[in-house]
Structures are given as C-alpha cells and as structure tokens.
C-alpha cells in the first residue's frame, strides 16, 4: 500500500506533486496501451487513495493517526484482525447537478490502509475520534503486552 504514498525524505515539498503527476501520467499512458485496454480498472491500483498514517507507541497503548479530510464519520470503518489495524472507507461524490469539474485532484472512492501492530491490543477498549479531518485511534495494549516492573525484594 505504501507504493502510492512513498516520498523520498529529502525531496523538497514543493516538487512532490510535480513528481507524482508525471509518474501518474507515465503509468496512465502505459495503461492506455492496447494490451491493457481490456483491464480498465487496473488503473485504480495506481491512482487509488492512500491516506497518510502515523503510529505512536507508549508503555500501555498505541495511537494511529490518519489524515482523512472531508469524510463523514459514518463512512469510516475501523477493524482489528490478526494483530493488524485496518482503516477503510469511502468518500462519496457530491451531487453533480449541472456542474463541470475543471480540475479534480481529490480522490473519490474507497480506500483501505492496514498496519501490523507490534504487540497485542485489547480489542474491546479501542476508541477513536475524528476532528479537523484527522482520525485518531487509541488502542490499549493487552495486559500481557504491557511492560512489567519487577520489584527487587
């Protein structure tokens, strides 16, 4: 999934989108070749939406922070499976009555991000907030995964 989002850390911020649009154009022209013509949807693999995800760790919990601007809370799904956190959802196209798009860089459609958690978490105590377009998921570690203090007697 990182295929789409990866940015070389030393690249200047203002050039980032330029580089991506030219890469995307190259991929699109590649996909336009006759061999691919029967696989119209293949292009989705390369143009999908891969929201930025950060993960933080403290002694007793993890916090995942995902940038999801302009979503509705109801359209975001959070799930835990086999030690991996998955955040998925769909951004729906607003009604387009008599409107003409002149430029659309904003991705509309579904997305899915997964990240393996380094230790087990207590699935029953996971909580999440969504503010200013940022989803914050707090995942308390399972009892056995918390650091233990051992007293010297």
């Amino acid at each position, binding site marked *: 999934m990182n295929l789409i989002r990866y940015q070389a850390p030393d690249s200047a911020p203002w050039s980032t989108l330029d580089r991506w649009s030219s890469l995307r154009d190259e991929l699109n022209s590649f996909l336009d070749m006759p061999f691919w013509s029967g696989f119209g949807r293949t292009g989705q693999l390369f143009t999908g939406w891969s929201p930025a*995800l950060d993960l*933080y760790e403290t002694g007793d919990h993890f916090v995942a922070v995902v940038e999801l601007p*302009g*979503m509705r809370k109801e359209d975001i799904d959070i799930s835990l499976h086999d030690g991996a956190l998955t955040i998925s959802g769909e951004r729906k196209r607003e009604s387009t009555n008599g409107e003409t798009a002149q430029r659309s860089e904003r991705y509309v459609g579904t997305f899915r991000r997964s990240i393996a958690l380094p230790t087990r978490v207590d699935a029953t105590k996971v909580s999440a907030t969504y503010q200013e377009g940022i989803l914050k998921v707090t995942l308390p570690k399972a009892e056995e995964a918390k650091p233990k203090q051992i007293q010297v007697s």
Partner: protein
Amino acid sequence: MNSLTRETREADRGQAEQFVMPPASVTEIADGYMLEIEMPGVKKDGLDISVENNELTVIGRRSLPAVEGTPIHRESRPEDFRRMFEIDPSIDADKISAKIDQGLLTLTLPKAEHVKPRKIAVS
C-alpha cells in the same frame, strides 16, 4: 477564458518557509466556481486566504493533535499547506466566501453580476 485553474507555483522557490501543496478540485457551478482544498488538521483560525493582483493564495496552518508516545511509523508531513491560483477576471473577488469542515476547505467564487448570462425579455 473561463478558467480559474491556472496555477502560480514559481513563487514558492527561494522562500524560507516551506509548504506542502494540498490536493484541490475546481468545479464550475451555476454562477461561479467552487474550489475545494484538502487541509487535514487545519482549523478556521489557521486559515489565511487572500487575493492580490488576481492571485488567490490560500495558506492553512495545521494544529495537529498532540499525541503522546514515540512515533514508530510516520507518513504524514508536518509542513503547513499553501496553494495559489490565478483567478479569472469574471470572478467578483469581494464576494468570495469560505468554510472549512473536517479538514476540507470549500471556497465559493461567484462571477460578477455583469458577466452572468442575462435573459432579455422581448416586449
């Protein structure tokens, strides 16, 4: 003609402050344009929208949630957002309005009265 979308990007170079260019969409609506810019982590107070010499500049300063703990995986960028557009002369700069909801900034840019199509009744 008719396009709000010409971008001015060169001005970014050589300035000390660094910005990220957020994704934007431009839609032509009934009597003007709608411009949407993705600015996750930006609140109303963090926005700075200005028009000068037909150039619209939008700056969004992020107030990211404080998260305790050690970052063990990071993809987000800490820089603030900036995007510039050259606006079409048909737009009435005094009537531009803006709102931000869940990190999505929506600007409405109405056309000036004198350029709107007018129906002329035959008497």
